[in-house]
């Protein structure tokens, strides 16, 4: 089944105000750069974005925040973005902070048809407010629900025309679960190959989860904390 679309414009067709969008990545690592830039271009507004982080001021989701295109963020950590913190503390931006493991599992659950599950993470904290608490093996757990999105936008290293994806190193992070949880899942890849060129044993995300795939025009792959040692 050929899922290839010709460019980022076609990939994001149907993107509308007030949609819920999942975006893969951890920090700036493994984020769908081309799609984010296109989202800025379209001027779409009122978005609910589910993403572990919120980019930095001038890259990643920070670009959408600068333009005030995001109404609500669902994230686990947003500490690298001053504009974010300003909008949040001023009340312009709704923010739902979720423990990172619960965020990952809730996306997976959304893709896997599991409507809810119990986790110990957040028990006794404000994360647990309004949530059911139940003990298992003498330990309290809270009930967390699945997350899904109108569009899930992920970034992979290699992909084939069937939508099969391979991520590179720690750029994998949230991409595989979000790919499962999109009503429409869009994959931007560094290299798009014909079906049959990827080893079926090495594929991280099966094409069944992906509706549209395209090769990104340019990947800046900005590094957030360049740390090195001397030779």
């Amino acid at each position, binding site marked *: 089944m050929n899922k290839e679309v010709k460019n980022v414009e076609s990939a994001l067709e149907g993107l509308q105000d007030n949609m819920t969008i999942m975006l893969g990545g951890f920090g700036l690592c493994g984020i769908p750069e081309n799609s984010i830039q296109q989202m800025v271009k379209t001027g779409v507004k009122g978005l609910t974005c589910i993403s572990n982080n919120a980019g930095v001021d001038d890259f990643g989701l920070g670009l959408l925040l600068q333009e005030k295109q995001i109404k609500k963020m669902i994230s686990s950590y947003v500490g690298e973005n001053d504009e974010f913190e300003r909008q949040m503390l001023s009340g312009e931006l709704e923010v739902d902070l979720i423990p990172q493991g619960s965020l990952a599992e809730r996306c997976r659950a959304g893709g896997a048809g599991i409507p809810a599950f119990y986790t110990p993470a957040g028990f006794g904290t404000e994360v647990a407010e309004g949530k059911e608490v139940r003990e298992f093996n003498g330990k309290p757990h809270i009930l967390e629900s699945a997350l899904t999105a109108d569009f899930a936008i992920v970034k992979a290293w290699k992909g084939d025309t069937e939508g099969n994806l391979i*991520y590179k190193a720690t750029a994998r992070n949230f991409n595989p679960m979000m790919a499962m949880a999109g009503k429409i899942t869009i994959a931007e890849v560094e290299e798009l190959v014909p079906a049959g060129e990827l080893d079926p044993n090495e594929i991280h995300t099966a094409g069944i989860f992906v509706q549209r795939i395209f090769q990104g025009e340019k990947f800046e792959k900005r590094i957030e904390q360049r740390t090195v*040692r001397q030779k």
Partner: protein
Amino acid sequence: MSLDKIGIAKRIAQELRNGWYVNLGIGIPTLVANYIPKGIEVEFQSENGILGMGPFPFDGDEDADLINAGKQTITALKGAVYFDSATSFAMIRGQHVQLTVLGAMEVAQNGDIANWKIPGKMVKGMGGAMDLVASADNIIVAMMHTNRAGASKILKECSLPLTGVNCVRKVVTNLAVMDIKDGKFHLVERAPGVSVEEIVAATEGELVVPDNVPEMVLD
């Protein structure tokens, strides 16, 4: 003399045991990796998706696709493995990681920890900390004993929003090593040259002081 960050990291490194998988938080905990005792083999898990994390890359070898949970460029050791975030927290929640070391703004005598939010002021998010503290059997907190104004951060009760409840077992500060059990801090070791009185004065929570409190031995 109280410990610096490196001193705290060195002392915590003494807690490592052979064969452990270890998750190190951002800040002081990250430094622990530099002081693994001789003869001890451990493997570091970073919750963004790597097991077998190595040192920082040589200048010029950085790879934007290979970072740790602090978003720093890293390397992978022989035998390393990459995985997605759901699998990463399956390792953590499923208690496959033997030790978690993380920082804190406050710790309470019942093992509560606060390290993610100052209402109305700093709201960066909890990242993976809530999963880590709710799941790990063995949590060591690395922190300063007091804040800049000199107020104790070793408390009867946390005043900041909690990250987890009843979870911290051991605290290593610039002044002391303390265990937490039976709803109290128990003084285990003093930093070199730091007196028991200094520690007691800097501790707001209930602190059990045994007759003999040895000095830490570092290096």
